[in-house]
């Protein structure tokens, strides 16, 4: 028999420290596969966030930089401007990208930095123990929204693709999820587009992946997958929000 599925080369052969059922792992694999398929591993610089995926640098067999919380797009800008022929991607959580890093992502997008942004929206701060993220759903419990998020007190969940798409510098913005084989396949296509756009010099591409956090949501992995499909997708519709390729 022939091996028809194996770990991508860009993904180190070590156990990832994510919780059971956390889709950070799927997202990692997809990014690594795309890097493999495009043959750019030796040419790639990854910029890691602060968040559960801070350890991405231990899992990717390419050069990586650990950025300060929220600043990955600025760091990536520094890298890409100096080395325009390298493939530069950021990988950021919703706290990282949509809270503290708002200015950095908005301006990288507005400038049209030629980078690929992997955005993991799990509607929570995973690493720090389950506090509200900008994307936390209304009514969702978190350790800083006891009784559930109430917009009068804690504001509204932020839709990042919708926010960034109008900016001139954005080449591509898509929201995907990782909850079924079909969704994973779509996610991979989106990620590949985001990297291909960079190779083609099109500007900033962002792929928002609705992701699970069974631990901080306090549910089983399977229920977490269901929550993404049933609750999150309703507020965060999947789809391509912008594509300069038409």
């Amino acid at each position, binding site marked *: 028999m022939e091996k028809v599925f194996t770990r991508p080369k860009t993904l180190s052969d070590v156990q990832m420290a994510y919780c059971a059922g956390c889709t950070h792992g799927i997202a990692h694999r997809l990014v690594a596969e795309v890097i493999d398929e495009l043959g750019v*591993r*030796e*040419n*790639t*610089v990854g*910029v*890691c966030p602060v968040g559960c995926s*801070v350890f991405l*640098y*231990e899992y*990717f*067999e*390419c*050069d*990586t*930089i*650990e*950025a*300060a919380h929220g*600043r990955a797009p*600025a*760091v*990536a*800008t*520094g*890298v*890409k*401007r*100096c*080395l325009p022929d*390298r493939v530069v991607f950021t990988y950021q959580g919703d706290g990282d990208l949509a809270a503290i890093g708002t*200015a*950095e992502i*908005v*301006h990288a997008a507005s400038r049209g930095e030629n980078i690929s942004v992997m955005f993991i929206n799990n509607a929570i701060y995973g690493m720090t123990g389950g506090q509200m993220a900008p994307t936390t759903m209304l009514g969702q419990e978190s350790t800083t929204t006891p009784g559930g998020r109430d917009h009068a007190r804690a504001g509204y969940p932020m839709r990042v693709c919708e926010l960034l798409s109008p900016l001139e510098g954005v080449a591509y913005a898509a929201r995907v999820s990782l909850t079924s084989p079909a969704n994973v396949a779509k996610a991979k296509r989106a990620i590949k587009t985001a990297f291909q756009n960079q190779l083609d010099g099109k500007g900033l591409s962002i792929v928002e992946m609705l992701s699970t956090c069974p631990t901080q949501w306090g549910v089983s992995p399977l229920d977490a997958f269901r929550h993404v499909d049933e609750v999150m997708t309703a507020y965060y519709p999947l789809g391509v929000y912008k594509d300069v390729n038409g």
Partner: protein
Amino acid sequence: MGKRILMKGNEAVVHGAIAAQCRAFFGYPITPQNEVPEYMSKCMPEVGGVFLQAESEIAAINMVYGAACVGVRAMTSSSSPGISLKMEGISYIAGAQLPCVIVNVQRGGPGLGNIAPAQSDYFQAVKGGGHGDYKLLTIAPWSVQEMFEHAALAFDLADRYRNPAMILSDAIVGQMLEPIEIPDCVDTDIPAKPWATTGASGRSRNILTSLYIVPEDLERINLKIQAKYAAASLREVRYQEFDVEDADLVLVAYGSTARICRTSMTMARKKGLKVGLFRPISLFPFPSARLAELARLGKQFLTVEMSAGQMVEDVRLAVNGVSTVDFYGRLGGMVPGPVEILDQAGLSLERMHPKSYTVGARFGMVGSGE
């Protein structure tokens, strides 16, 4: 030797940086350093380097971090409030052991303060305004010529120790015009950077991080960093002395205040007062050993700053009670005049050497403003 041209300090630091192979600048406007990004926006593209006006000081320092990661000599510049915003980023750069240069053209504080000259960010620069046990290799130019020269010095220090370096200037040094000589070529020493994250081609991956989750690991990194500072303290101490040999009182001042003190010193000598001047050029590492030696030789000190008393703590730590350290400072953008400092020197001499000096009347010629 190049020709003499009239230049602002803020312009000179740009030319100095570019001559030192700086090829990336990220900044954000703030008075009184706006000429730095403005000249950079013109000069960088001419040498094929990167100029980018960032959306904020925070973005700028993190862009510098990115550029430093790939081995490029990178710089940012700002003034006091903007430098405060860079504190987290600076701590990261020090923690990840990356070289870069930060220019602070100090202005009056705290808060929005004003845009007049000040030296009240000394502590922030040399003690660590950011979190954790790091230091900035800090040098303080006092002339436009030095604004030019210190750029290369700062980059060399940064590269040599893989640590951020700061040029601690102020609104006087940044804004003033002086003739300077630009050499045809600048001596600078750029080491190989095998750690740079330029793509893992033909080698195993490089990782640049300041995260060491296991305390033993982080302590090891910290000890390494401290060892670098110890080495720099042996090798990179820089200062200048004027007439200290026979001095009873040594003025201690850096940057533009040192220039003013030099005028005061000349005035004092004319009046027969044995006053010298000690000018730290490197603020970290601080020239403590030499000051301690001068103290042992019986010199007394008067530290003059445009602050409420910051560098004077390092002077006191160096002198360690062996002799007297007086302090005179002006605040909030006020610049002490030469006569005003002369008066203070007189007071110090009188108190320290009551037998030799009875200065009595002050030297001030006009009261107001002094």
